[in-house]
């Protein structure tokens, strides 16, 4: 495996460029996973998501994940990009591309990479709900609404 491509960006993610990076005649399969901003979560409507990172540690953890995945599966290439800042509905927050000799390896590595990224990479999202509230998403903590809607008297 060549050096993994690891990136944090405030620009829209060019997933085609990312996919081209991992394509190889040594690979029979390419797996691309995109996380996108979904409008509805448990019936609540999202207007936007804002992503924040602890950048040096996030990059270091993303690289560590790529290297761990390359030890578990025979990855031909791997690339991981996370978007930061304000994202509109449908925009791409994260892109993971892996190429592997066989498809089972690609599906397993891609699944492990996104699952583990969500557990260990220091990036946080804040919901901007359609009712005007903002809420950090911090799994395992209690209700974290920080800006309740201003209600009239």
């Amino acid at each position, binding site marked *: 495996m060549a050096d993994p491509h690891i990136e944090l960006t405030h620009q829209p993610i060019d997933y085609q460029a990312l996919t081209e990076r991992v394509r190889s005649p040594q690979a029979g399969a390419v797996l691309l996973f995109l996380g996108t901003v979904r409008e509805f979560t448990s019936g609540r409507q999202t207007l936007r998501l804002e992503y*924040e990172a602890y950048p040096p540690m996030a990059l*270091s953890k993303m690289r560590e994940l790529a290297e761990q995945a390359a030890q578990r599966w025979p990855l031909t290439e791997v690339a991981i990009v996370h978007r930061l800042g304000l994202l509109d509905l449908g925009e791409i927050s*994260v892109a993971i591309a892996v190429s592997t000799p066989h498809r089972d390896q690609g599906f397993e590595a891609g699944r492990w990479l996104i699952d583990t990224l969500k557990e260990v*990479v220091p*990036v*946080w999202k804040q919901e901007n709900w359609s009712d005007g509230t903002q809420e950090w998403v911090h799994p395992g*903590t209690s209700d974290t609404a920080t800006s309740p809607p201003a209600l009239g008297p």
Partner: protein
Amino acid sequence: MKVPGDMKVSVQLFARARDLVGTSPVEVELPQNANVGSLRRALAAQFPALAPLGPHLLVAVGQDYARDQQPLSPDQEIACFPPVSGG
């Protein structure tokens, strides 16, 4: 009471932890031979606003997750933040 050998560390806060405290980084005074557990207690005492996150806060030292037993020194990069939610 300031004891000779006490140290001051700078702690970066992120996401709801920073919002609750209102700023980042923050400076925290720690006893000599402090470890990550001492840092947690000092942060909780100095910033009561962090209470809702208390047991959930994670500490990173040198850009890696640290357990409470890990010793601290003033020259390390230290960060404290709630559970991650990227992806």
